């Protein structure tokens, strides 16, 4: 998230699009605090949840129509002149002029300029700025030029009227207008609003565009980088932020460097050229990458061998290796060996039945977890007709290794929370029996592989042998690993004047000191600064600091350590106006103090305030780039116009499975969405308006359970909080189908079916979509076939057996928030 949970209390309006009260209850206290201070809470959600119960206004929208909602808001704000004009002109690319060839989806029948139907992809050649003679983007600060981003955006969203919102989302006009007015009025110098999101926006075939739409609304209202504003991304796992930073993901390397591609990045030089922009802060990428390679391969990484760049695998294609690719390829027999570490795809991923079937095709599977997950015991899964009649244990040839893993309380290490705060946790007890930390399992595997490959002269094995892999005898020393991630000076480092900056081996204090000449290491540049040396050369672990906040430092910079550089609110330069003064006294946060000492002797002026500047602290507002708060972007501006694979502006398309036709254009679904073809009818899809699967279904989580249930269904204290697996349906649908509260029902999709108890509730209501009644049901997805003996309700059918293998075009995320199903009373 761009902001900090604590700072939500400064919001004037909070628009929760996620179910924050249920999924992030402890964070939600800051929303409640803001409410006590007079803020309003709008909850935008198809379901009436515990967040709605706390909200001033609940705005139900049909699942899969978020962009219409945000687009409607954007249009409303512009039409009513509610946008924060100074912010938009100076801090965003609204004033930039776009190539005249570019056409918005309004002019392209739902498609942007450059669509190639055969490739199902865009040629983005017109999606670019007009440049002046010096190569800088042309701008029109009046925002009137028809080719300006602002005018294009306006044109693009001209179709997103309140009537359209009502017809597509099913939100009554008056309700939408009330919400739009309330939220958009929290703009300007005196007010800010924040928006939360989580998987409600991501799990769609236009997931990335959903989030972009949200961000655009926030930019338009001047709500980013300012206290009480921001994009509140709420992550689901304790370390989903950290695991993403550390790039346990197909597309990148630690610190958000693209994972090399065969065609684009044949060697380090080309890689760095292609991935390093000409301006903005990312010009430093070579320093970060080289330092990472030095951390990984130590002395064996030299300038001559590209610092071992070749030892890192190169991808054959950008359209490969994602979660869903893994299971399709596994099902097709391509994968032989598979590790599931603290993850339970037999329950937790889309089309889970396919995932379980795919596991049967493996030679071997290693599961590392606290409990025996459904993935570890997939060979014990109950029958799933028509594909698997009975538990065919004998026919499953997969070898399974289960390594018992320790929970956080039994090991040292850091977790990075949703606001980028890195916190160290201590090992409180030894793990029991043969249980070991994940680190030890991984470390031991690496050690054994290095032994197996020892002596190999083959070029391809040299990376393994070069790997720095010495963290102790048995259990790796986690602080040593953290210091490696932070990075150290390999030799004594001096500045230009010869002054010693770092002693040999000293951890680096800031990523600004990283070098691309092989004299520094840093496993992940954004974490540089997390550990330092004290005067005696002893490591000080800043992630383990426990200093409370106070009135002077409400964001508590002494508690843990937040990347980057312990900043708590990103883009905080935007909290001051272009001249460097606070927009208002009330929203004062970071400002330019012309009298404060500079870093250069005899010069004055620096950015000061309540946070570490997310900016060059000594760059004056009137200097070149002094009004570019978005330092990670080459142009320094927040992007309304931001080319993704499916368009530079978010456009509404219906989910892949939808009961209705797209009312905004003739493009029914995202024209670039990824749809996998899987054999044996394992990924059938319902057609538009299918009579067989007439209802919208959304899947979600509950406060009392955790994701695929591994950390809740096996815990009596949590597993007992729900009587059984259930599906929530409206009284209206229940009446139509003759279902009473507590009846067992069957929910079916083209991929599978599940049984659950019907929870008939007023919290679900049918939507009126373009005059037609559309029912939506909701099913939590925590259940699986393992659980607590003696608590029958801790086990249940796997909701993800219903979802499809389809993905967003940019990141291949699944679409489990909106698809189609049927509901029948009883066990069908």
């Amino acid at each position, binding site marked *: 998230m761009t902001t900090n949970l604590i700072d939500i209390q400064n919001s004037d309006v909070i628009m929760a699009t996620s179910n924050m*009260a*249920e999924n992030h*209850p*402890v964070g*939600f*206290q800051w929303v*409640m605090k803001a409410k006590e201070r007079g803020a309003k809470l709008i909850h935008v959600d198809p379901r*009436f949840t*515990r*967040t*709605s*119960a*706390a909200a001033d206004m*609940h705005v139900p929208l049909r699942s899969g129509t978020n962009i219409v909602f945000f687009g409607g808001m954007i249009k409303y704000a512009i039409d009513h002149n509610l946008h924060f004009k100074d912010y938009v002109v100076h801090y965003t690319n609204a004033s930039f002029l776009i190539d005249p060839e570019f056409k918005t989806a309004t002019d392209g029948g739902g498609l942007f300029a450059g669509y190639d139907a055969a490739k199902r992809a865009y040629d983005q050649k017109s999606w670019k700025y007009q440049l002046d003679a010096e190569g800088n983007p042309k701008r029109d600060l009046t925002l009137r030029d028809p080719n300006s981003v602002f005018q294009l955006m306006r044109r693009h969203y001209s179709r997103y009227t309140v009537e359209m919102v009502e017809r597509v989302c099913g939100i009554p006009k008056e309700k939408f207008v009330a919400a739009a007015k309330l939220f958009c009025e929290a703009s300007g110098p005196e007010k800010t609003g924040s928006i939360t999101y989580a998987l409600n926006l991501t799990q769609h075939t236009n997931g990335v565009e959903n989030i972009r739409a949200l961000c655009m609304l926030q930019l338009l209202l001047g709500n980013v980088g300012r206290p009480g504003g921001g994009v509140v991304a709420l992550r689901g796992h304790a370390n989903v932020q950290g695991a993403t930073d550390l790039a346990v993901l197909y597309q990148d390397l630690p610190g958000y460097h693209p994972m090399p591609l065969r065609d684009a990045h044949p060697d380090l030089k080309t890689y760095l050229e292609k991935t390093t922009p000409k301006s903005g802060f990312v010009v430093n990428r070579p320093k970060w990458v080289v330092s990472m390679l030095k951390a990984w391969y130590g002395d064996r990484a030299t300038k001559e061998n590209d610092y071992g760049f070749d030892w890192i695998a190169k991808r054959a294609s950008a359209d490969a290796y994602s979660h869903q690719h893994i299971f399709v390829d596994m099902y097709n027999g391509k994968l032989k060996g598979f590790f599931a570490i603290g993850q339970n795809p037999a329950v937790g991923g889309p089309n889970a039945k396919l995932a379980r079937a795919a596991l049967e095709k493996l030679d071997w599977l290693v599961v590392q977890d606290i409990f025996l997950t459904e993935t570890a015991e997939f060979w014990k899964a109950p029958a799933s007709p028509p594909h698997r009649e009975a538990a065919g244990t004998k026919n499953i040839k997969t070898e399974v290794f289960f390594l018992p893993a320790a929970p956080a309380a039994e090991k040292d290490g850091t977790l990075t929370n949703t606001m980028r705060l890195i916190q160290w946790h201590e090992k409180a007890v030894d793990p029991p029996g043969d249980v070991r930390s994940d680190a030890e399992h991984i470390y031991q595997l690496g050690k054994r592989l290095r032994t197996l490959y020892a002596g190999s002269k083959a070029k391809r094995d040299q990376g393994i042998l070069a790997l720095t892999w010495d963290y102790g005898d048995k259990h790796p020393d986690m602080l040593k690993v953290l210091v490696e991630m932070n990075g150290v000076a390999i030799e004594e480092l001096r500045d230009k004047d010869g002054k010693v900056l770092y002693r040999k081996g000293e951890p680096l204090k800031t990523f600004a000191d990283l070098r691309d000449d092989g004299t520094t290491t840093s496993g992940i540049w954004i974490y540089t600064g997390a550990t330092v040396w004290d005067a005696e050369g002893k490591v000080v672990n800043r992630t383990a600091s426990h200093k409370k906040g106070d009135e002077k430092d409400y964001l508590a910079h002494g508690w843990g350590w937040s990347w980057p550089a312990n900043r708590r609110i990103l883009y905080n330069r935007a909290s001051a106006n272009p001249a460097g003064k606070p927009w208002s006294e009330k929203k004062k946060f970071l400002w330019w103090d012309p009298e404060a000492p500079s870093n250069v002797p005899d010069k004055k002026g620096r950015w000061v305030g309540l946070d570490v500047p997310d900016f060059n602290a000594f760059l004056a507002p009137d200097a070149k780039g002094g009004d570019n708060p978005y330092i990670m972007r080459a142009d320094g501006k927040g992007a309304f116009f931001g080319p993704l694979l499916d368009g530079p502006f978010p456009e509404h398309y219906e989910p892949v499975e939808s009961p209705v036709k797209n009312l905004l254009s003739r493009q029914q679904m995202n024209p670039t969405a990824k749809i996998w073809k899987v054999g044996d009818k394992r990924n059938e899809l319902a057609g538009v308006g299918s009579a067989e699967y007439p209802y919208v279904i959304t899947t979600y989580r*509950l*406060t*009392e359970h955790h994701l695929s249930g591994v950390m809740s269904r096996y815990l*009596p*204290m*949590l*597993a*007992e*909080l*729900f*009587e*059984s697996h259930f599906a929530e349906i409206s009284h209206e649908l229940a009446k139509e189908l003759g279902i009473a*509260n*507590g009846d067992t029902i069957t929910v079916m999709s083209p991929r599978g079916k599940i049984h659950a*108890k019907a*929870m*008939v*509730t*007023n*919290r679900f209501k049918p939507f009126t979509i373009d005059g037609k009644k559309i029912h939506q049901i909701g099913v939590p997805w925590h259940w699986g076939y393992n659980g*607590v003996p*003696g*608590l*029958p*309700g801790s086990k249940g059918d796997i909701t993800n057996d219903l979802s499809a293998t389809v993905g967003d075009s940019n990141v291949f995320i699944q679409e489990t928030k909106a698809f189609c199903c049927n509901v029948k009373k009883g066990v069908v």
Partner: protein
Amino acid sequence: MARTLAMFTDTSLCIGCRACQVACKQWNELGMEVPEWTGTYQNHTHFTDQTFRLVRFIEEPKPTGELAWLLMSDVCKHCAQAGCLEACPTGAIYRTQYGTVDINQDTCNGCRYCVSSCPFGVVAFNASSGTAKKCTFCNDRIHNGLGPACAKACPTESIQFGFRDELVARAQKRVETLKGMGFKEAQLYGADSNGFLGGLNAFFLLLARPGTYNLPDSPKLPQRNVVVDSLLSIGSAVLVGLGALLAFRERGQGGGDA
């Protein structure tokens, strides 16, 4: 007696997360139970010997026709005049120096009279220990300067812990604020020491009338009728006695063989 401690449960702040319910179980080491289907998110209809905190989920339309999901973390009320305490024949149920009501597990003999004497259905019998159980107000914690586990965990400060007088003052202010915000039925339940049961040391702020939350409007001490009932019994004794007297004094008449 020390200054009276209390818990104030402000249902207008409750998000129904059930942290209190679990934190209570964790601290008090209460066992697993098979839940019952209640038709909503609630896992029990009532308190048990293993559930001292219970979050209630009530769907109730607002006067405006919109839906309200009333969420409430319910608990032992620690009544100033406690039916259970009065009913206890062993003295196992006692009032602590802080005004809370606790059951001494080493003296309770499991007669279960307290179970039927609680106006709120809080006290429950535990078959394995053979004793009555209920919220202890985390007696061990409050005697060591810690707040109750539930209040400590509560993410939204729906459960507040502190001195009763201070909490009541805060609660009264909160009701006024809520009324100003349009919650016409916002009201305190059990805050008034001159009200029913002499006031509750775990009192509540409700957003609807008590009945909506399954709470009695005006709970009464069950022992209030003992004197009347006893006098009526004595009356009955007099009648029966007279009848017997009459029968035995009528010497030589009736009865026996003719």
